[in-house]
C-alpha cells in the first residue's frame, strides 16, 4: 500500500469513526499480499442449457433430441468442426479467436442432483452429492488465508455459501457507496465507537464484523472513488455488477476473489427467446469487463470462470423448453495462461445417457483444484478436503 493511501485511511478511520482497538483483527487489514492474481466467478443461476450455448452442431443426435430448439450450424457462431457458440455470444467467440477462452464440456459430478438448490450447494461447497457441507470452497480458501475482510467480494445483497468459511467469510456488497450508506449511518457509527469490550465471544464477533464492515466500506469507497471504468457497460444488472468488480480491481483494493451471478436460466418453457436474451446480456457485460481489464493490462492476472448448477435434459420437452439436467459446459477467460485455448475436451456424448441426461466427463472439483493451485497459489487438498487431481488447464510461468 502506498504511504499516501495509508495516511488517508488512518485519517479516515480515526476522523469519522473511532473503532476501539480490540475490534481490529490484526494490522495487515489493508495490506496487499498475494501473487497479484485474481479470479472472478460468474454463476448462471437456474441451470443454463449448455448444449445450446456450446453447440455440438455436427452431431445428428443433437438435432433429434432438440427438434425445433436445436441451433443449426448456419445460425451458430463457428468454433471448430464439432462445436460452435450460441448466436448471442459474439464476445465469447472473439475471445476464442484471441486464444483467451477455454471451454470444458460435460462438467459435473457423480450421482447428480436435479434440484437447483441442492446442486448449487454441491457446486458451492465442493462436496460430493452425498455430503452436506456448511462451508464453501472459497470460504475455506479464506480460512487458510488471513487477509483483508474484503479479500473476497460478492457483488450481491447477501453472501453465497461458496464464500462462507468456518472462521472467515466473503464480503457482500451491491456497490461500495450503498454499503457505506447503510454501514456508516450516524447511529451505527455510534454503536461501534461506544462499544465496551465484552467477555462474550459472540458479542465480540458481531462487533468485529460490524466494525470491519464499516472500515472496509469506507476504504473501498475511498479507493474506488476516482476509478471510472474505461469501458462502457450495459445497463443490465450483470453489467452494473461487473462494472463494480472492474472498478475494485483497477483501484487495487486488495481483493483477490470476486463473485457475481445472473439468474433466469430455468428455461422449462419457450427457451429460445429467453436464453437468447440472457446470453446476450451476459456476453455484453463480460465483453465490457474483458475490454476494461485488457486496457488496464490486468487481463493476464485475472481469470473469469463461468458455471451453472446443472445443464439441461438432452431431449427438449413439450413446451419449447428443456428440463433439469446434469453435466454442463463451463468456460474460463484469461489472457496468456491457458494451456489449451479453445475446447479442452470433446463434445458431450449424446448417445450415452442416464435417464436422458449426460454423463459427466470432468469432475467440477478438478476444475476447482486447478484454479486453487494455479491462480490462488494454494494446495488444493487443504480446500477441497480430499486429493482431487487437477487438470492441465493453465501454464503460469
Amino acid at each position, binding site marked *: 500500500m502506498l504511504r499516501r493511501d495509508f495516511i488517508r485511511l488512518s485519517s479516515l478511520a480515526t476522523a469519522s469513526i473511532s473503532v476501539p482497538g480490540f475490534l481490529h483483527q490484526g494490522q495487515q487489514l489493508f495490506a496487499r499480499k498475494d501473487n497479484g492474481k485474481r479470479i472472478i466467478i460468474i454463476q448462471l*443461476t*437456474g*441451470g443454463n442449457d449448455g448444449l445450446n450455448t456450446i453447440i455440438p452442431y455436427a452431431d445428428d443426435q443433437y438435432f433429434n433430441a432438440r427438434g425445433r430448439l436445436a441451433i443449426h450450424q448456419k445460425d451458430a457462431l463457428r468454433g471448430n468442426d464439432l462445436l460452435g457458440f450460441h448466436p448471442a455470444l459474439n464476445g465469447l467467440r472473439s475471445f476464442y479467436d484471441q486464444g483467451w477462452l477455454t471451454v470444458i464440456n460435460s462438467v459435473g459430478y457423480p450421482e447428480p442432483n436435479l434440484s*437447483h*438448490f*441442492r446442486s*448449487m*450447494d454441491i457446486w458451492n461447497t465442493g462436496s460430493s452429492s*452425498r455430503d*452436506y457441507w*456448511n462451508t464453501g470452497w472459497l470460504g475455506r480458501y479464506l480460512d487458510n488465508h488471513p487477509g483483508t*475482510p474484503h479479500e473476497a467480494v460478492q457483488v*450481491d*445483497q*447477501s*453472501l453465497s*455459501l461458496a464464500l*462462507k468459511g468456518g472462521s472467515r*467469510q*466473503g*464480503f*457482500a*456488497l*451491491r456497490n461500495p457507496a*450503498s*454499503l457505506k450508506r*447503510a*454501514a456508516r449511518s450516524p*447511529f*451505527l457509527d*455510534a*454503536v461501534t465507537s*461506544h*462499544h*465496551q469490550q*465484552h*467477555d*462474550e*465471544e*459472540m*458479542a465480540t*464477533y*458481531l*462487533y468485529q*464484523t*460490524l466494525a*470491519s*464492515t464499516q472500515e*472496509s466500506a469506507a476504504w473501498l469507497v475511498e479507493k474506488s472513488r476516482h476509478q471510472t471504468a474505461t469501458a462502457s457497460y450495459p445497463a*443490465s*444488472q*450483470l453489467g452494473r455488477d461487473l462494472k463494480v468488480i472492474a472498478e475494485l480491481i483497477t483501484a487495487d483494493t486488495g481483493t483477490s476473489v470476486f463473485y457475481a451471478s*445472473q*439468474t*433466469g436460466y*430455468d428455461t422449462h418453457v419457450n427457451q429460445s427467446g*429467453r436464453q437468447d436474451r*440472457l446470453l446476450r*446480456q451476459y456476453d455484453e457485460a463480460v465483453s465490457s469487463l474483458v475490454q476494461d481489464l485488457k486496457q488496464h493490462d490486468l487481463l493476464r492476472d485475472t481469470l473469469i470462470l463461468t458455471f451453472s*448448477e446443472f445443464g439441461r435434459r438432452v431431449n427438449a420437452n413439450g413446451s419449447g423448453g428443456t428440463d433439469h439436467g446434469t453435466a454442463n459446459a463451463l468456460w474460463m477467460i484469461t489472457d496468456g495462461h491457458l494451456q489449451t485455448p479453445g475446447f479442452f475436451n470433446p463434445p458431450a456424448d449424446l448417445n450415452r445417457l442416464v435417464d436422458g441426461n449426460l454423463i459427466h466427463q470432468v469432475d467440477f472439483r478438478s476444475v476447482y483444484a486447478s484454479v486453487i493451485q494455479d491462480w490462488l497459489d494454494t494446495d488444493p487438498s487443504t480446500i477441497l478436503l480430499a486429493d482431487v487431481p487437477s487438470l492441465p488447464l493453465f501454464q503460469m510461468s
Partner: protein
Amino acid sequence: MLTPPQKLHHLYQRAGFGLSPREWKRRQHWTIDQAVEDLFREASNSIPLGGYEDHEAEFADMRDQRREMSRQDRRTQKKKLDREKSRLLITGLNRDWVHRMAASDQVAFREKMMLFWHGHFAVQTLFGGLARIYANTLHRHALGRFSDMTLAIATDPAMILFLNNQQNHKDKPNENFTRELMELFTLGRGQYNEQDIREGARAFTGWACRSLQGEFIYREADHDEGEKTFFGKTGNWNGQNIIEMILEKPEAAQFIARKVYRFFVNDTPDEARIRELGQQLYTNGYDITDLMDTIFRSEWFYHPINVGNRIKSPVELIAGLLKTFHGSFDDPTALSMGQAALGQVLFFPPSVAGWSGGKSWIDNQRLLLRLQLPMILFEAAEADIPLPGDPEAVDNIATIRKLKANVDPEPLLTMISGQPLDESRAMLIQYLLPCQATEPLAWLDHYLPHGDPARQMLALAIRICSLPEYQLS
C-alpha cells in the same frame, strides 16, 4: 452467577422467544420450578395450526372470471390459481406459526420445539396443504417420544415427496430417505454401512403418499416382502422395524441429545453433559419432555457460559421483536420476504441438513440488515431487501424498500411508565438484552427524536434492539 430474574430471562429466551412486556412484568419473580411447570402446562394446551380458508373469497373471484374464458385460457388460469392458492396457503401458514411464536400471552415453547424439529427433520415444500400436515406432525410429536415422531415423519407426505420415498419401488429402490434417516435424523455418519442403507431402503418400499389428498398410503404391491439383512439381523423387515432397530442403538439417543444441547444450551458441545443426557433419553424411551425438563431445571443451564452466546436465528429474531412490540404482519408475503433476506424461510430450509445456525447466519450485509430490522419494521425505515433468489425467476433483481409491521407500543410503554429516563433505560436493557450487557448506554439518548416522551421511549426500545447484543440470546 445469574440473579433469579436473569435466569428467567434466559429460560424464556431459550424455551421461547422472550416474553411480552406484560408477561415479563408478571413473571419476573417466579421461581424456575414454577416457570418450567408452566412451560409444559402451556405446551399441552396448544392446538394444531389451522387452515387458511379466508382466502376462499379471492379464489371465488378468480373462478368467476374463468367462466368467461376460452378453454385454453381456463386451463392456464386454473394452473395459476392452484399455484397462487398454494403460495397463499404456505405464506399464511408461515405467518400463523410466527404469530404464535410472537403471541403476547404465550411463551410458545411448543412452537419453539417445532422450530427445532423443523431444522432437524428438514423438509422443503411449496405445497401449502402438505406444509400444514407436516407442521402438525411436528406439533403433535414435538414433546412426545422421538421414536413416535420418527415414525410419523417417515409417513409424512411432505417428507416422502422431499426425500423421494415416493420413488422407492420394489423393483427399483430409492435410497434417499433411508440414507438421510440414518445420517441426519438418527445416527450420524459411521454408525452404519452402505449395505444397511440398501437393505433399509427395501424395507421402506411402498411407503408412499397421495399428494393431493395429503395422505400416507402403504402400497402393498410395491413393498418388497423379501428377507433383508439390517445391522446384521435378517428378517422380512418393514420401515417400522428399521426405525426400531436404529433406535435400539444408544448412539441414536446420543445423537439427538447432542443436537438438542447444541440448539437449546450451547453450540459448543460439552461431551460429559451430552453423554448424561443421551443416557437419560435412551433409558426413558426417547421421552423428549423428560429431556427438556431435565435441561431447564439443571444448574448448568443457567451457568454464564451458556447464556447470551447464541446468535438468534432470523425467525427467532423476528418473532422476538414482534413479541416485544406487540407487532404483526398483515401481508404474509412481506414476512416471507423478510425471512428470505435474513436467510431462514419456514418450510424452505436450504437442504435436508437444515440450517447450519451459529455464525453462518451472519455476513456483513445480513448483520447490517439485522441491526436495522427494528427500525425497518417499526419505524418504516428505508430498507434494501432483495426478493428471494428464486432460480425460476426472470433476471431482474427486485428489491423492496419497505417492510413494515404493525406495532402496538402501549404494553411496552406501560411497563416503564412513570420512571425517570435512566431508570426506564435500565429496565429496557434488562428486559431486552442478555444479562452480560450492563452498560447504562446513556449515549443512546442522543439518537432519540425530540418531543413526545412516549415516542421517545418507543424509539429508545427500538434502538436497544438495534444493538449487536440484541442478536444474542
